[in-house]
Each structure stands twice: as C-alpha cells, then as structure tokens.
C-alpha cells in the first residue's frame, strides 16, 4: 500500500511536468532567452524581480505579435532556472541553457555564481548578463559576460561626488553584510571614497545576513558620527531595518546605497525614517519614465499583482539582447557576431524620456565593451516613492 502511494505521488509529479511543457502553441518561431538566478530562498527577491521583468516583457512582445529580427518574427520564451544562489546549481543551470540551445542568458545574480558559470558559458557560446561586479568577469580574457547594470564602483563615486558638493559630506562610514558580494562592494566603495578625498571613519563593521536587530551592529559606527553612511551591497530585506535602526539611534547624516531598492519595502519597513535615503534605480520615476516604461510597470503589476522597483534596473538586459539581435540577425546563433556588433551597436532607449541610447560601454572599467549602458539614475526616497536626484552616464 505504501509503495502504491509513492507511485501515485510520482505519477502526479510526472503528469504535472508533462502539463507544464505544453506551452502555448504559437505560429511564430520561438526565440528562447534564458535566465539563471536565484528565485527561491533568502535572496529570492533578486532573481524573482529579474525573472518577472523578463516574463512581463516577453508576454508583452508576444501579445503584440512578436519581435521582428531580420526577416523573421519571433515569439519570445523565457527559460528560467533557479540556482538557489548555489554556484554549483548555477553551472547546472547554464548547462541546461546550452542544452536548450540558448545563447543569451540573463543572470546569475551573485559573484560566485557568475564566476562559476564562466567556463560553461564560454565553452558553449553563451553570452550572459550577470548582476555581479567583479571586474575579472568582464576584462579579458573573459569574453562572454556583460554586466547588466551599473557597478557600484561606478555609481559610488558619482553619488559621493554629488553629496560632497551638494550636502558638504566630509566623513563616510561603510557597513556591509559578511558575504562575498557586499564585502567586495564595500572594498571598492572605500577605495573610491578615499580617492575622492573623503575621510573614511569606519569601514570594517559587518553584519550577518540573518541579523534581525541592527542596533548593536550600528552602535559603534554611530559613535563616529559620519556625515554619510553607505550600506554596501545591502539586500532589499535588510535596508529598511538598517535605516530604521540608524535613525532610531539618532543618526542625522545621509544614508545611501549603490544597489536597487523597492519603495514599497522601504515604506513598510522604515516609513518616514527612510526619507532622504539614496539608492540607485532605473528609469521609473515620473521625471524620467517614458510611456513604454509606464506601460511595462502596468503590465508587470497586472501579471504579478505587485510591482517591484528593483525591476527598474532589470528591465534592460532582455531589451539589449533583442535590440542587438535585431541589429545583427546572424547573432541569433553566433555569439561572435554578437560580440562584434556590440562595439558599434546603438539604439534608442525606449524606457526613458529624451534621447538616451542603448549601447555597450565599459571601456574605462574593463578595457572592452562588456557593460550595458543604462542611465545611472540616482534616486532619493521621499514619502513612499522615489524621486530622481540626478542622472549620470557610465562610459
């Protein structure tokens, strides 16, 4: 009887698998774009916002008749793999993408995953767009990774410079989670701040990712009374709590981070205390958002019930892939064609008002064009929403 029950469970699982694979039949040929990232567990929100923006965009394209590359109109299918933030799984995910014949993958979301998939991606001719900052991923001899956002060592200096000029910030303190990504970001942030002549009063306070109370963590920093507190690589879950604790401890200065945040999360977690919090965002603030961006947010909200502001920075990777393919249809199966196209590619940025361009940058940081040019939009949180503080360009 037990065996039968087990069999039954297995059967159900298998039939569910079968059901899932019968995706919508479309007349257009399908172009598959991959996503390898974390969509379960503690860091799920990073990957999920990523995956959902891709799915939203794909559904939108398919609904409006597909995407024309060369002479063919394609339906876009997003193939997602949950790597559970484990580099070993990320490799498996990249292998799976190769298996599916996919050449363009968004992700992984973290440093170790991005480094681990490199051999697979390069061996199988896959261009991938990690949200990880180590320069070794993008500088030669690495060839297939394209940084999908603005790195903190690019946005950090811009923010510090602005704050030095506008707010007279002179001293700065850094705090980071005791994990690879935030620590690396802190180190490069510290270097940038020092280069700008800021006085770094504290740079070695760290917290465990599972911290629930940040008061003891922040207390030693507060004694230094810095003008600026930088939350290096802070996860959206921790940011409101850090802000709240710092403010409750009587911190008066500016708090900033170089990662993307969600306004809703900040409102719920810190409320008014988060006013004045500076973070890097995409182009969804009313001052910048194009009609297309607004529609994107709309569709996303309809599809998943709630928008996530982290997606503002994550809307771009898929657009870049498609636009570049459009510019050179041969690149659909040939990544070397893609790589050569990257050097001269340019298209209008549909998500932003004005004449911003989509193009590949990174010459000054990586010595080759291995970064998407997204506008460096620095936002400030005010009463439940983000306002644009300033916009800068990355080269």
């Amino acid at each position: 009887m037990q065996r039968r029950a087990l069999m039954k469970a297995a059967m159900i699982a298998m039939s569910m698998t079968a059901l899932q694979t019968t995706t919508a039949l479309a007349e257009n040929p399908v172009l598959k774009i991959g996503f390898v990232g974390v969509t379960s567990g503690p860091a799920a929100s990073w990957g999920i916002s990523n995956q959902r923006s891709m799915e939203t965009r794909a559904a939108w394209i398919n609904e409006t008749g597909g995407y024309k590359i060369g002479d063919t109109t394609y339906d876009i299918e997003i193939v997602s793999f949950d790597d559970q933030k484990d580099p070993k799984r990320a490799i498996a995910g990249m292998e799976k993408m190769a298996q599916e014949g996919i050449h363009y993958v968004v992700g992984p979301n973290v440093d170790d995953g991005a480094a681990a998939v490199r051999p697979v991606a390069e061996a199988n001719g896959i261009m991938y767009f990690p949200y990880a900052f180590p320069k070794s991923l993008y500088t030669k001899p690495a060839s297939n990774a394209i940084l999908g956002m603005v790195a903190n060592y690019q946005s950090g200096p811009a923010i510090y410079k602005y704050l030095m000029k506008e707010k007279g910030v002179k001293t700065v303190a850094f705090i980071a989670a005791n994990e690879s990504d935030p620590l690396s970001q802190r180190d490069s942030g510290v270097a940038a701040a020092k280069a700008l002549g800021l006085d770094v009063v504290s740079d070695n306070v760290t917290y465990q990712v599972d911290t629930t109370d940040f008061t003891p963590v922040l207390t030693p920093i507060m004694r230094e009374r810095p003008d600026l507190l930088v939350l290096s690589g802070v996860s959206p879950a921790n940011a409101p709590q850090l802000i709240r604790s710092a403010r409750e401890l009587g911190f008066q200065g500016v708090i900033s981070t170089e990662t993307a945040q969600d306004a809703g999360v900040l409102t719920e977690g810190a409320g008014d205390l988060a006013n004045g919090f500076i973070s890097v965002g995409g182009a969804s603030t009313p001052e910048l958002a194009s009609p297309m961006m607004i529609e994107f947010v709309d569709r996303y909200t309809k599809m998943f019930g709630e928008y996530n502001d982290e997606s503002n920075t994550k809307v771009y990777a898929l657009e870049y892939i498609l636009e570049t393919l459009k510019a050179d249809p041969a690149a659909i199966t040939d990544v070397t064609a893609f790589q050569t196209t990257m050097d001269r590619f340019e298209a209008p940025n549909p998500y932003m008002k004005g004449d911003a361009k989509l193009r590949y940058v990174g010459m000054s940081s990586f010595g080759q064009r291995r970064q998407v040019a997204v506008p460096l939009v620095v936002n400030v949180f005010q009463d439940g929403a983000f306002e644009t503080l300033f916009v800068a360009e990355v080269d």
Partner: protein
Amino acid sequence: MENITKRQLFNVGLFLFSIFIAVPLIISATGRWDFYFTLTSVALLAIASAGVWLTFYIGRINIGQGAFALIGAYVSAILVVKGGISFWISLPAAGIFAAIVAIFIGMLVLRLRGVYFAMITLVLTQVVTLTALALPITNGAKGISSIPLPSGVSLFGIPILPDFATMANTKLAFYYTACILMVLTYAALYRLVNSRLGHLCRSMQQNEELASSIGVNIAHIRIVIFAISSFFGGIGGAMFGSIAQSVYPSSFQVADSVNFMLNCFLGGLGYVFGPMLGTLVLYFGWDLLFELGKYQMLVYSIILIAVIRFLPNGLLSLQFGKGARK
C-alpha cells in the same frame, strides 16, 4: 563477508557498465549533454556524502561536511593558482589537508554526541566560511577565480592523464574523472565497512560503553573515521572547484552541509550505497523538476516528504525489505 556472491559481482559489473558506458551512450543518443554536469555533480557530492555516511556509521550526525569540502576546494585552488602545482597532486593534498584539520577539530569535538555534535559541526561550516572570508590567502570575499583546468600528467614521458585545457569536451573528461573517484570512494567505503574497522564502527554506533569495555579505543577510531570522512569531503570539494574554475567562501555553505546529511538519510543509513542513491535522487530530482518553474520547490519538497513518510529508513529499504541486512 569475504565471499562476494555472483549476484553482487553482477550488480557491480552492471553498475560500472551503466556509469561508464551506458550513460555516455544514452547521453549522446538523446543529446542531453547537460546531464553530464549534473551527473558529475552527483558523483562528486556523493563522494562527500559518503564521508558523512561514515560518520553516521559511528553514530555521529555530521552537518559539517561543507566545511571540509570548502577547505578542500581552497587548498586545491591555492596550490594550483598560487603554487603552480599540478591539479592531480593538489587533489590528494586537499583531501589530506582536510583530514588533518579534521583530526585537530575531531580531538576537540568528537566526544560530543547526538544533536550536540550535529550542532557543533553545523557551526563549523559557518566558521570555515567566515575564515575563508577573512583570510588573505583565500583572497577573502573576492574568492579565487580563473583557476586553470587540470593539466596533463606524464610519467617517464608516457602520458597518463590528458591535459584538460586542450580537450574539446571537458564535460566528458570531468564526468569520467568524477565517476572514477566515486567508484574508488565507494569501493573503499565498502571494504572499510566490511573490514574490522567497520565492525568496530558498528559496535561504537550501537554502544560506545560496551565497545570500550571490549578494548576498543573509541576516541582513536572516532578520529580516524572523522579524518577519512573529511578526506572524502576535501576530495569532492577540490574537484568541484576545478570544474567551476573558481572558489568562493559561499561555494560550500550550511545548506550544502545539510544536503550532504540529507543524502545519507534519503538513501538509507543502513546501506553503504545509500548516500550515492540519495545524492542522485536529491540532486538530479531537482534538475528533473526544472520544467515546473515556480512550483519546482513545492513539488520537490512534497516528493521528499512523501518518500520519508513512506520509506522512513531510506530508499534502499525498499529493495531489501524491512529488517533485512545490517
């Protein structure tokens, strides 16, 4: 215990045939090349899980194998990248280093039992991760990346092992390497369990007091077993580092330690080959459920719960029936 029956011999032959010949054939026939990596992972994780199983065999719940896998991965990476040593030398070195660390830690913690031991090994995983983050030699948070592929080995001018970097298909090479290591590990494990050391382990697992009353130096055997267990962990970790060509403090973490333990439970603590099957089902199962998208985790966990609910003594208890075998 000395006489291997014909049936066993046949089973072993069948097993070797399937992993070395049938699997590659099936993969090339179906074109599912991505399974190579998954199966390679299974083989390597099964090696580490074998170590955990061995500590279970002396009655200790070990949630610290991730620590030793990470140590192994770092030792190998550091030797290869900073020392310029061949990977094939760094591999056993990684295992031995992990074993030495295990001896020191074991002397301190092995008298703990039950959940206390489980807990302290869990903390150990965190300690090693944090140490890797803090030490300069491990490159801290930045990890070690761009590790070269295993180089060729030749003895007296005769090539024994090919240079992986020049290979067109490293997947297959890694698959074979991992499988060979796994077969060696389990052969050793089987021998060990069925030799006197294994019998002594069993006696300790069942009653440490009685074991010491018949003259078994339990403290000594515990350390030996823990060292062997960690050796396996180190080997598995080092090999993984070489495939990923990078090692980060997060390459093996608490979740991995827990998974190693779960592999053993799932396969069945009473069976030498339990951890291998457990690893295959747990790791491969996740991959197979990939199509389910956001329900992947849900279905995966439900199946896991169903298995343990109906087969509480592990998957292999199905084959042997209740109470059969040791």
